[in-house]
């Protein structure tokens, strides 16, 4: 971080405290004293627990960690974290977080959003946050429904969804959030699920480690208004057939007995049976998380196994990651360069401007 001056003149700023080391915190130390008010059985509980546990493992400094959210069930998240936090307004968390990060780039900033907050009312900010690539983390709680307003269809809901606002079925084609993110030139996209805590934890750590805007989509079950939306991917019976866990450098293999793979037939991904003898692991697509073209294709593995016969499995893990300069770094570099170029700003010179005259 090329930040030549402290971001604020607050004399009590962490880094300036004498002997400012931190005590090792446990997951429960990251829980605030407020009662968690999500519905019992909500997938949000699992995510909250994993985030608290990950922060403890990362030895995060709670006074230097900030959660910024918008509006919706998931956006209550900051209230339950014993860190700094702001529950802002609907859809605007990425913009608020941008200002915060530019005010103080040393903060560890997390954005908490949902499918409605992040991809409907706040879709524009999401696109621009991703292309700017500030060094922040975005956790997208996707439950394919509006929960807080009691069950209207969301921009990620499947077509023909019957809800209170769509008694005859919804007409809108759903958004594919990660494909949209790739379209916005995101530098990091990953997918996980509330019902696989181990994987979720791993993805939270990976996302946090990414330098740049890390978008982690988490399939989250709303057991009240959209129960089972992702069960085909999350439940034992169907999961092996429908999900594809990605690992960098490894072939795309899935199936109950690791018996299936994905092979690229030209530009067409095809599911092949590894037990028939026609194809071996050597014939498969090897996951390269730095390959943008293949990353785009993986986001298009978006079939619904319940309605599509020849479906491709849904990928989980890091789909794409690249290093690209962060907006916050670039801004501070530019400030420094401007000073070097034209000298530290002088108020009197600025006020007087170019031409003055005297009245005597």
């Amino acid at each position, binding site marked *: 971080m090329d930040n030549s001056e402290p971001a604020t*003149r607050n004399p009590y700023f962490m880094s300036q405290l004498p002997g400012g080391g931190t005590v090792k915190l446990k997951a429960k130390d990251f829980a605030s004293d*407020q009662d968690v008010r999500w519905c019992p059985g909500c997938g949000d509980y699992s995510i909250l627990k994993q985030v608290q546990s990950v922060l403890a493992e990362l030895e995060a400094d709670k006074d230097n960690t900030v959660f910024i959210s918008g509006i919706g069930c998931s956006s209550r998240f900051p209230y339950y974290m014993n860190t700094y936090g702001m529950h802002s307004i609907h859809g605007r968390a990425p913009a608020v977080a941008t200002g915060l990060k530019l005010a103080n780039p040393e*903060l560890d900033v997390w954005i908490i959003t949902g499918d409605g907050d992040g991809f409907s009312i706040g879709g524009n900010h999401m696109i621009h946050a991703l292309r700017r690539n500030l060094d922040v983390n975005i956790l997208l709680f996707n439950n394919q429904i509006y929960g807080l307003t009691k069950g209207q269809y969301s921009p990620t809901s499947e077509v023909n969804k019957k809800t209170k606002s769509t008694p005859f079925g919804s007409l809108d084609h759903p958004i594919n959030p990660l494909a949209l993110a790739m379209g916005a030139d995101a530098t990091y996209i990953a997918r996980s699920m509330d019902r696989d805590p181990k994987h979720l934890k791993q993805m939270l750590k990976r996302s946090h480690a990414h330098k740049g805007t890390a978008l982690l989509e988490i399939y989250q079950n709303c057991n009240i208004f959209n129960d089972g939306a992702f069960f085909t991917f999350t439940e034992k019976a169907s999961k092996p057939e429908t999900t594809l866990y990605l690992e960098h450098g490894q072939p795309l293999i899935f199936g109950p007995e690791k018996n299936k793979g994905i092979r690229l037939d030209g530009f067409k991904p095809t599911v092949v049976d590894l037990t028939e003898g026609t194809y071996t692991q050597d014939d498969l697509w090897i996951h390269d998380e730095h390959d943008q073209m293949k990353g785009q294709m993986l986001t298009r593995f978006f079939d619904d196994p319940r309605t599509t016969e020849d479906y491709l499995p849904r990928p989980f893990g890091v789909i794409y990651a690249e290093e690209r300069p962060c907006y916050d770094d670039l801004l501070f570099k530019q400030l420094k360069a401007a000073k070097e170029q034209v000298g530290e700003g002088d108020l009197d010179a600025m*006020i007087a401007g170019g031409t003055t*005259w005297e009245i005597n």
Partner: protein
Amino acid sequence: MSKTTQIKEEVTIKFAGDSGDGMQLTGTLFTNDTALTGSDLATFPDFPAEIRAPQGTLAGVSGFQLHFGSKKIFTPGDEFDVLVAMNAAALKANLGRIKKNGTIIANTDGFDKKNLRLSKYPDGEHPLENDSLDGYEVYQMPITKMTRECLKDSGLGTKEQDRGKNMFVLGFLYWRYNRSLDSTIQYLEGKFSKKPKILEANLKVLKAGYHYGETTETFTTKYKVKAAPMEKGTYRSIMGNQALVMGLVTASKKAGLPLFYGSYPITPASDVLHGLAAYKNFGVKTFQAEDEIAAVAAAVGASYGGNLAITGTSGPGLALKGEAIGLAMILEIPMVIVNVQRGGPSTGLPTKTEQSDLLQAMYGRNGESPLPIIAPNSPADCFEVAIEACRLTLQHMTPVVLLSDGYIANGAEPWKFPKAADIPEIEVNFVPARDGNEAEPFLPYKRDERHVRGWAIPGTKGLAHRIGGLEKEANTGNVSYDPANHEYMTKIRQAKVDAIADYIPAQEISIGPDEGEVLVLGWGSTYGVIQAITHELLAEGHSVAHAHIRYLNPFPKNLEAVLISYNKVIIPEINNGQLCKLIRDKYMIEVIPYNKIQGVPISNAELKHFVKGILEQAAVPV
């Protein structure tokens, strides 16, 4: 033939041409040179919303009005002594406002058949050839031809040559007003230092215009306007948006906080973004956001992070920002919202001026969300008001709205500027770090005697806490749906804003007696015209005074006492009576509105006529 020099007390010139003719630059350069002579001045640029409106049409006319004199100048002037008309449309659009016996300098090359048709003169009618300009002193000059002639060996194409014709006009006017070419030569040398061919061409045409005045026998008289009696000191010429930018940067330095400016381009506020973006060496962070909402939301984030956060816009943008401003209001964090007002509603009249966002600033958010409002009264005043807005926001932990307008933003005047050392520091107190051994827990919404909470920013040890747009419990800031608490918090937030009245100056009378028949009460950009007419009416022996409100919310504590010291209060506004509504509501005092809603400033003559009418009514015994 000998030439005489005549002394004039004041002159108003209108430069008018096609929006691509460079009239704004011509006016600005002539203004800057005028300032150097020590005359007082006021300007009014007036341009179409389209960047290159259809050439030659009435809609495409761009104008720049300059009023200067050897006396105090309050307004850009109602009518012109001189009209520079670069084409037929410019003449037609402005003819109604040239003084009797005024001068018209017409570029005859802009009056060909096509120009006449585009400016909708009836077939066969040529204003320079019939008697329509009788009574005016008309100088017909083939400016385009002369410019081309002058540049025929320059190697420039015709299109490039024609760009120089505004320099010809400028040179001619410098001759006519007895000026030197130095300031403009200096400007051109700086601007075209890397384009010697263009520089040479501009200088050549500028000088040609000057010599044309000197050698052509038609022009027998030069004019001179002497310096105005102004306070001793060092001056510069300043435009409103420029002063606003410098005020914000100064406040940032005086508060010791980095300045964060979140904005989305919008007329007429974009120049604030442009201006601040150039001051990166002051540590100014400018963020051109994806939309108005992101611009204000980013400012909310920057304020939460401890920066001096500003967002700037114009009316429609303020409407979009409403929800996020409400968030900043309930969070109780500092932020200045600059609204350079323009004609509304909706997209309205983007390049025209209006004062019609006062009620939006006051009430334009959901729920009970009072905000302080402050307004500059002239281009130079923007400097001081910008600093004051920052002081209020930082010291009272509330967003503050600053209401400028298009007229102030783009108008220019001489400014006796201050020394940075003479501007007071702005005290900022962040909540100090805690080590956990304090007797009392940290309470983010605990208040001081002014009802102001502390500014606790992320990164401070021991202060981790959560804030948000949900109603907060008093002191702790935890989410609360308690009915009594909500009422308490609503009232305390109002009380916090009201308490600012204890920390702002009392309302002064700008000119006139402390009590009497009529008080003309204004705010914002009507200052100049009200000053001008009040001076004149006082000189004519009327009982009239002028007070101008800078603090529109809360009002100064003595405002009611001031208002009731006069039999009648007249409020001129460039809107449909918005300050009138606030005054009536707050004090239940009857006021007399004078409203003009035409996208242009109130003229001296019309306002004087109106106020005089009221004064004369009063003089009739009942």
